[in-house]
């Protein structure tokens, strides 16, 4: 193509803008987060967790800095005000995907609501790992993915108690 043609006879230039796709942080990638969610649930007792618990773990595992801060907190080296939990708006979305993929289930909680004899309070809502979710967690453990996250979760050694979660969240509110 001759470049002069583009400039046109009247000397007007036409500028064409192509919208470029945006890069996104790896934190946002769905499949990775689904796999990570199965690992988080495996860290919890009975492979199930409340939403606040998941928010805390999800924040803790997020970055090398948060992992360090959380470990320090668990070992009692850092007061909870130095480990400030951030609520991640993509977590509910990840959970929604996981529910649809049948990697996790919240059916126990929901059924109770339908039967309706007692209101199920938000505090009783639990996300639970399914067989399929467990298979994914096992597959992850066999391959070389989410390595740093796994090293971190293992070092927690299932020692994350509800009390710790509450303490962290309480500080977050102040």
């Amino acid at each position: 193509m001759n470049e002069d043609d583009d400039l046109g006879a009247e000397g007007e230039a036409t500028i064409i803008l192509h919208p470029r796709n945006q890069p996104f942080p790896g934190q946002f990638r769905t499949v990775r987060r689904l796999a990570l969610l199965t690992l988080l649930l495996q860290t919890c007792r009975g492979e199930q967790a409340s939403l606040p618990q998941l928010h805390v773990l999800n924040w803790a595992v997020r970055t090398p800095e948060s992992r360090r801060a959380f470990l320090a907190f668990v070992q009692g080296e850092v007061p909870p005000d130095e480990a400030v939990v951030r609520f991640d708006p993509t977590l509910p979305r990840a959970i929604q995907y996981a529910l649809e993929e049948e990697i996790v289930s919240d059916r126990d909680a929901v059924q109770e609501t339908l039967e309706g004899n007692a209101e199920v309070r938000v505090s009783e809502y639990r996300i639970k790992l399914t067989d399929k979710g467990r298979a994914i967690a096992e597959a992850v453990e066999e391959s070389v993915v989410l390595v740093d996250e796994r090293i971190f979760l293992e070092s927690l050694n299932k020692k994350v108690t509800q009390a710790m979660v509450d303490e962290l969240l309480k500080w977050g509110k102040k």
Partner: protein
Amino acid sequence: MKLRVRALQIRVRAENGLFGCDMTFPDGLVLLRAENSKGKSTCLMSILYALGLEGMLGASHQVPLQPVLLHEIGTDEGDQRVIDSYVRLEIEGEAGVVTAMRTAAGDSMVQKRISVVYGPDLTDPSKAYEMKDFFVRLKGDADSEHGFHAFLAEFVGWKLPVLSRFDGTRTILYLACITPYFFVDQLSGWRDIKARMPTYLQIPEMSRRTAEYILSLDILRIAIANIELGEREELLKKRWAEIRQRFMASLPRIGIVPRGLPESLPSSVADVLAPALLISVDDKWISLNEYATTVTQRARELSQQDVPTTATASTAAVEELAQLEDQFGARLRKFEEQQVEVRLVRDQVAAIEKRLKSLRENYRQHDDDLRLRKRGGALKIRSAGDECPTCGQHVSGVLVPEGANLRPMVLEENLAFLRDQVATFREMHADAVRTAEGKAKAAEALSSELGDLAAKLRAQKELLRSRSSSPSVSDIQERLRLQTRLVQLDQAKAALNELAEHLERFKNDYKALLDDRKLAGGEKLTEADKVKLNELQARFLEQLKLYQFESYRIERLTIDAYTYRPSNEGVDLGITSASDAIRVVWAYLLGMLEVARVKETNHPGFLVFDEPKQQMVRGVSFEALMQRAVLSADFGQQVIFGTSQPVAEIEQMLAGKKFTMLNFGDEKIIKRIA
């Protein structure tokens, strides 16, 4: 590689007498026949227990044996408390025949001991055999002198590979990892092939590595060679850093900058070179040789003149002092500016490093996503195909609201983008580091120049104060300064010579490493590996046909070239019907045993199948399996089967075939002896 069970002895002492059983096992197919819940599984588990291999069942340190050996035994006089019990197992390996004994009921430390008698103490008892105690299921049981698994591996002829863990530490491939290839327990061994992999041991890619080891594939040897090469490279990197550091420390601190000799190990041997040395003089970089020539020349000029007296020197001295003071002030300002610049560029380096770190983390996360997506089909994750799990519409693969005004890059595009960014920032980093070093060195040169100027100033002032007949202090100072400089330049030269020697030796080692790396090649299947896998696949598919596998079309099934597990058009076979799952385990494990007949593998030539639970075997073609297993006798292999199939049926199925039946009818296997 050889492991055969020759004889088993179980003894349980209760309050009212001694109970137990004794049996011997020839080569070929051995059927341990008894009605249900008469103790078949207990006997088979005793084999596992006597060898300390129960670690394959899980991390628990509980004894995996029935209460009959541990707590309470049902006798003709009612239930009785177990006082003590043990299992003795005579085994044959590459290194002959030994008898292992392990206590079952007892305290946990006694259970961690296995006593080995060096001889066939069950079939041919003698007091003459030597005996030695080993420990098991404690740290070091696989690699220390008194570790039973270290003994057992050597006895069988296994040289177990050492792999590297995620955190970089090394670990031996434990025997518990390869046990599932020759021992299938009743509880979950039949669920699918990988159900019994002891993942708690935290060995990366364990199921692949163990399959590679059992089949003795070259790819594992390459992987291990690469681990070793990686370690050698780490050592060389460290040595490079040391050589460089020692050289830099031995340079006199007069602002000498080496050009070349990068901080990190160069990627080619040709770049392992002694650097050119530069020095900053009047804000220009000149080579050290050039500088040395100037200094030598000036020193020689001065040495040919007499030292002038103050009188001859002082005429111009006042003017010179003023000049020197101006010069000193200007250079000092310059020095301060430089200090600021050095700080700035160091901050820049730190900022780039921070950015690089976060880019790498981001890249790793994307890479994880990519790897998981590749396995997404096998794991049945619909999102892995950018498909909405609810409605099947296309989704973007990131956790943002669909249809929002965002156009996220697709994964591969994002990965490419990050790769570019990392490359760019690495360039920037290298550049900033070079700049920082240059600036620091220039500052060092200027600082040494300032020192010289200060000395000159002092000398000049001294000169003006001194009597006119005394020799010129500033001239003497200048001579001394030049002498010192010459000594320093000699030091630099000596340091460079020493460096050259180190580099020469280093170069040879580095070249050897790169050559070895080329020789080792990439981690992929060799032709010989492929032949073995094809052999396994052929035998696997042939058996599935015989066993009437029906979940998928058999011609679509393969042994996957990555996982080495059965796969259906590239997807892990996963969960099929209960009876097909059993067929798959039979065909796969028997296939492994059979490959050992025609190829060199690390299979022990030994296989134990406990009977699958009753409800799972319905309609399974047991006959075809037994007829296949019978062939093991022709190759000196051994297959032990727990079964409750009626005797008449077995005899009919295997009419005219050579096999051994240990039939206990409807009696308990462990019964009163005394």
